[in-house]
């Protein structure tokens, strides 16, 4: 199951990633099943059995420790957005296809829409809201503004988090490594070429700093 929620190893493309789930369609089925398992639990006003009822979890988000009550069927994305009002990560496809919900869990880029919230217990999570230090932007954020690495900006939090993860592992990526590293994120406005430039600029900034 671990593989279904880890976004991907950084050199794997989006499609390879989906295949890694057991082949395109099968991968999707798996993802759906994972989310679907609990979906029926609260159906028709039937009370949740105690084992599936709310559980209190504690984790660190952007350096702060938080405790929240979650249902087993809730995803980390839902908890971040709806309970903690950290709305930077977006619910774009809600099934591991686009990267709009990408956050870092213990330093690794993860699709939070596929990550059961209960499993966040005890983990370190960073969202796009946690990158800047006060009003000073993270070099990746600066580079996305300078190179105009977005248009509507909806995919941007996801791309920025994937970039931070990529540069954490590969501080000086080649253009091919950048493209592969970000291939798990979709940008419908189609600004990939500008995003690539932003990632290269960010890498340079971070090496200088």
């Amino acid at each position: 199951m671990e593989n279904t929620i880890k976004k991907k190893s950084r050199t794997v493309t989006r499609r390879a990633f989906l295949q890694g789930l057991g082949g395109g369609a099968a991968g999707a089925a798996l993802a759906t099943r994972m989310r679907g398992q609990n979906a029926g639990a609260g159906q028709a006003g039937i009370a949740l059995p105690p084992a599936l009822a709310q559980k209190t979890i504690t984790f660190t988000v952007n350096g702060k420790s938080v405790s929240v009550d979650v249902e087993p069927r809730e995803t980390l994305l839902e908890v971040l957005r709806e309970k903690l009002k950290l709305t930077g990560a977006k619910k774009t496809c809600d099934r591991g296809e686009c990267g709009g919900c990408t956050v870092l869990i213990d330093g690794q880029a993860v699709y939070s829409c596929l990550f059961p919230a209960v499993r966040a217990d005890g983990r370190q999570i960073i969202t796009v809201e946690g990158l800047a230090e006060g009003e000073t932007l993270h070099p990746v954020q600066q580079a996305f503004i300078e190179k105009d690495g977005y248009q509507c900006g909806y995919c941007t939090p996801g791309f920025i988090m994937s970039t931070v993860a990529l540069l954490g592992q590969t501080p000086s990526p080649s253009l091919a490594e950048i493209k592969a590293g970000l291939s798990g994120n979709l940008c419908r406005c189609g600004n990939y070429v500008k995003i690539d430039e932003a990632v290269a600029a960010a890498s340079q900034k971070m090496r200088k700093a």
Partner: protein
Amino acid sequence: MKKNAYLKMAIGNKPQGKETSTPAPAEFKLIGKPTPRVDGKLVVTGRAMYTHDIFFKDMLYAKILRSPYASAEVAAVDLSAAQNLPGVKAVLKLKEGRVKYEGEQIAAVAAVNEKTAEEALKLIKVDYKALPYVVTPDKAMADGAPRVHDSANVEKINEYSRGNIDQGFAEAEVTFERTYKTAIEIHQTAETHASVAKWDEDELTVWDSTQAIFNVRDGLAEALGIPETKVRVIKMYMGGGFGSKLDANEHTIVVAKLAKETGRPVKITLSRKENSLCVGNRPSTQITIKGGARKDGTLTALSFRNTTCGGLDSGDQCSEPTIDVYKCPNVKVEEFTVFTNTGAGRATRAPGHVQGTFALEGFMEELAAELGLDPLEFRRKNYTTSNEGGTGIVYSSKGLDKCYDIGAQKIGWTRRNLKPGDGQGKKRRGLGMASQIWWGGGVPGTLADIKIHRDGSVEAVSGTQDIGCGTRTYMATVAAETLGLEPQDITVKIGDTVYPWAPISGGSLTAPSVAPAVRDAALQAAEHLRGIAAKKLSVPAADIVLADKKLFDKNKPENSIAFKDLVKGLRREAVFHGERGPMPAGFAYNTFGAHFAEVEVDTETGRISVLKVVAVHEIGRVLNRLTAESQVVGGITQGISTALFEERVLDENTGKMVNPNLQTYKIATSMDMPEIVPLFVDLVDPRINNLGNKGLGEPPRIPSSAAVANAVYNAVGVHLREIPMTPDKVLKALRGKEAGS
């Protein structure tokens, strides 16, 4: 928005018979330079508020039950079990009688959270009687096909002619006919459609993911039977529209009703599947062009016949490029739409022009080869400086010839295969190009205010929307330029119907509508301040310059007063109302461009890799080079995506869409991207408005798929004539070529 209404809006440039007021200078300090977005920080920190991100206290969540059938009679809807589910606050029946497509609204629920609303949907009992349906144009056109509407499944939607087509063909030395097809494409905006509705007494406020706040306001008022004055629509940030968010959506009306009934704010966010089924698509086309030419390449006749499919609604008229781009005295156009039991088509970034250009430019490329001419020379040979193929009024400005020159040089046009398919080896390379025309003149009457506060802060205000094109940034830049300030000094307020009216953000008309309105207001403000400064500095007002946050005597710059100090003395905050002026009659106002693509085709796998695209656009004055480049890059990316991957797939046996998600509905990723070189022709339209700028939203989307397809033709010697050019089609075409068909 109905596509025809959209096109009417896009054309927007109905000549008005008056000259524009202030001519634009040749060079500006800020306008035209690359300026990072003024609101960048909000976006990159995740603080920009999209409709999805709005959460109110006590807010309810709506979900909609939709028809699983392409065609059915809804005999009964039983809401009682859903109503009784704890947490459900309201249930609405939306349909009884005939449903006509998979995804049509049946009922809606508002509940304390999304999961409860989802569960409630499962408890709604619907008695469906499935009916016969048609989901493909071929089946819909067949004899005895089930009718989609009460009228026939095929309807003529457009015709046009000039000259004498028969005579044109009689004069031709070569006659040539080809058919081109494009698939149905889904907008797949990153942010799915979403709305939040909230009532205070009899006043409704709606936050909507929209490209057109005023259209949403008017549509809601009409649907709810309340005055427009009682509806306010707000759009802060939105995650992409591409034409699918141009009016009040059905689901928005539903949440307004649910909010009224429950007395609580109600939010709806559509799922990716709903976004794939219910909120629009780019209609498919099958276009046959027959052309006649002399051996020297002079076109004598073009006949254009389009059969388009937009599901429940009419498809796209696609003939405009064929009517306008090339000099040709004899043209005949006929366009037909076919109705099917599928979600209605909607305006999709450059509706009609994308498909029409794919056909026309493919045809030009193939006809050039037939004539043994360089395809670019063939296009130049039929160049025109007036519309309707040289028979209409002249263009106010047209730099397409310069686009050709620059693009050919940058791509290295001479490197192409002189004869299509001349290359050797398993992997073949080729070059192709395509021309573009679009409107983009803007809408006279667009309003904007400049408000100068006594503390020196300045607002630029307009009821427009920034849908990702950088509207806020060029509004700030234009105001700052005119007032001698910096973009950061300007607070931009947009996206609210309480602000002065502005048109939809679609049709490439935002920049040429809103920027001149801001300029107009700022010019009035500058004149007012100049008058005050003239008295203070004892020089004629005409000699006062606004620059570097000061007002000073142009003959003695040290005789100056700081902007801040000057406005401190204002009696109250000063408001200046700007308006985008009319355009002189007697000219056509259009945008132009040309794309040049290089591809590599793997003849063993059928895989196409796009290696490089050079795009040259003529849009009058560029307002912000940085964001303009992004527009071009995005248009090309979407064009490549359509050329290679995108297609809505329907199952004829069930009437259902089989790929309503982002895994099976493929869109391009970073891995599919070539090197992109976005360039602009340096030109200022002399009379379009007070800045000389035209729009850029659609232009880069228009020729991109066609240029790629033409490059594939140049590489392998067979034109696929159909997008998406998936590997199976490439291999089939190559086999067909080998077999000599």
